[in-house]
């Protein structure tokens, strides 16, 4: 039984870690601006496309990766500047619509640049290799993803708890107006949030596309939505919540994909039911259940980590 389930867990942990890196961006932006940044998943996709084109230009890989992260951060920063900042005093619905507009634009822009064709993600030596864990074989990146996620989250939590900018972030997320009155430069804090979020999305994209090496303009949509679901599930505004939520969603989704096999092998069913159809829908069902049962999410009440 364990042998049957283990490979799904492995896939789930890997993809969950990548969702986690995107989910942090959602949860931080929501914590501060109360905005569902619908374009965040597309920033993640854009990071993938940038890597494709930079690597194709012949630059060495050790230079490509920092460059990709840098450009991704710049993209996230510019989106906030151009599309969200002018709407700071507008109703929340307008900002959300603007986010949807940005998402639409990024996708169309990439469609135009790539000609609507799938782009092959470059192979990154080291993490693209195959390793065997027990009976299962997988890429190195699958194994390092959860560790990298934990390292990044610890660093991020330290940044938020120990540094001045982190303190400002916490203040802004608690009370937008008051912190403004207290002399916190709100715009800087918001920019910083977007920079961190985009950076993590960039890292996530490198891991994700190394695992699933094709990029197309819609590549970011589903992972983005699921990462958001993870953020809500874990309690929006809570970073550990987002990470745990992401792992749960990643694992559950892969278990659902393999549920037919698991049930089949356990002798519960005699023929496959086609439950894999619901692998995406399941995440949303989970979302609705949590919203109805505990609208604040798993860790929503812990205000201390709210950013």
């Amino acid at each position, binding site marked *: 039984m364990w042998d049957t389930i283990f*490979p799904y867990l492995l896939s789930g942990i890997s993809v969950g870690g990548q969702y986690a890196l995107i989910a942090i961006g959602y949860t931080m932006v929501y914590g501060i601006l109360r905005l569902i940044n619908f374009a965040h998943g597309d920033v993640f996709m854009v990071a993938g496309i940038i890597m494709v084109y930079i690597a194709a230009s012949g630059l060495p890989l050790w230079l490509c990766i920092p460059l990709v992260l840098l450009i991704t951060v710049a993209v996230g920063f510019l989106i906030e500047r151009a599309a969200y900042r002018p709407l700071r005093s507008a109703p929340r619905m307008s900002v959300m619509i603007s986010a949807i507009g940005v998402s639409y634009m990024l996708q169309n822009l990439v469609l135009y640049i790539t*000609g609507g*064709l*799938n782009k092959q993600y470059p192979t990154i030596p080291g993490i693209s290799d195959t390793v065997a864990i027990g009976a299962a074989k997988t890429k190195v990146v699958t194994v390092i993803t959860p560790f990298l996620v934990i390292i990044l989250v610890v660093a991020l939590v330290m940044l938020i708890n120990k540094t001045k900018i982190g303190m400002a972030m916490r203040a802004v997320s608690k009370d937008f107006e008051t912190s403004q009155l207290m002399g916190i430069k709100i715009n800087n804090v918001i920019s910083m949030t977007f920079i961190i979020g985009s950076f993590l999305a960039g890292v996530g994209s490198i891991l994700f596309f190394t695992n699933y090496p*094709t990029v197309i303009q819609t590549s970011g949509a589903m992972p983005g939505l699921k990462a958001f679901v993870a953020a809500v599930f874990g309690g929006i505004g809570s970073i550990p919540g987002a990470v745990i939520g992401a792992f749960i969603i990643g694992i559950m989704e892969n278990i659902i994909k393999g549920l037919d096999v698991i049930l089949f092998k356990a002798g519960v069913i005699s023929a496959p039911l086609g439950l894999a*159809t619901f692998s995406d829908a399941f995440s949303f069902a989970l979302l609705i259940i949590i919203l109805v049962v505990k609208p604040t999410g798993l860790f929503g009440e812990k205000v201390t980590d709210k950013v």
Partner: protein
Amino acid sequence: MKKLIALVLALMMLVPAFSVADDLPVIKIGVYEPASGDSGAGGKQETLGVQYANAKTPTVEIGGTTYKVELVMADNGSSTDKAPSAAQKLVSENVSVVLGSYGSGVSIAGSDYFKDANIPAIGLTCTNPQVTAGNSHYFRVCFLDPFQGTVLANYASKELGATTVYCLGELGNDYDQGLITYFKQAFEALGGMVIVDSFPTGTADFTSYLTNATGYNADVFFCPVSIAYSTQIIQQASAQGLEIAILGGDTLDSNVVADADKGTNVKVVITTFYQEGANAEFDEGFKAWLNENPDMMTNNGGNDVISAVSVMGYDGYYVALAALQAAGSTDGAAVMAALPSVEIDGVSGHIKFDETGDAVRTSAFVKTVNNETGEWQFVTEQTVD
């Protein structure tokens, strides 16, 4: 500013001067193919065949008049909801005949529009029987899924010795689902077991599906999906060390897929319409043309390996020309009436339509990827009685 206006005006004056350069009457052929979306890569390669044929034979003599053939492109975006307006665009441009599409679903989705406008359509590589069944206006130059499914099932059972096959298709893709159904029928008739799974559109993570195949102890992984998904599946199969062969239909016959399989240990076997080398004249001409046109080379995936879909596009163009000549008119209805009796010797073989409007095909090529060179290798030519 004034200078700019003057320049624009001057340029506009030049327009008529250039457009009267050749005064041949124009006949329009619609190319109804995806240029974006999941099937974009395949659609572009199919279009290349049409474009090459058009470059080679840019004019046609109909009823004693020589016409210039103009290709009108419409991108159906690989999706059935974008298909109507793409089809409508071709109709509104008054094309005489339509070629395409890559992908059976979009072909069916556009079908009614051509029917209502009395324009015949020639399917190039859409293999689902429903495209032509019950339609008098849709024709097709390739083989059909019941045939292809049987060929694949025979091959899986007899050559690969499989008893259990895991099939994976995209939800809502008529091509995938159709071929899997016919494969299943044929394979079960041979005494084998078939497990069918589907993934939602936009899936990138196939690792769990690959695990499923292993979990069912399948001997063959059958995934007749579009190029976009098949490259993902092959690469992830390689990472997971999948030991069983991946079997595919004609959609996998692309240099993009072969490239993905290069340097891995995954065995990929497919059935298709054409094998490079079968017609040296065409091969050389096509490659030379690709090398002259960098844009076209990009559309072919960056190299000059010939995909079978391009061949079908090429043959389809000549079927259309033959029909136009036989009709002696540019009127869609006349072309439709002339099509059933058209016969040509194409690059992919002799093309002749049966009463439903499908080409009579009795053989398919089986190819596999050479893992070292990343090239397609001919395995066998399979026929079904």
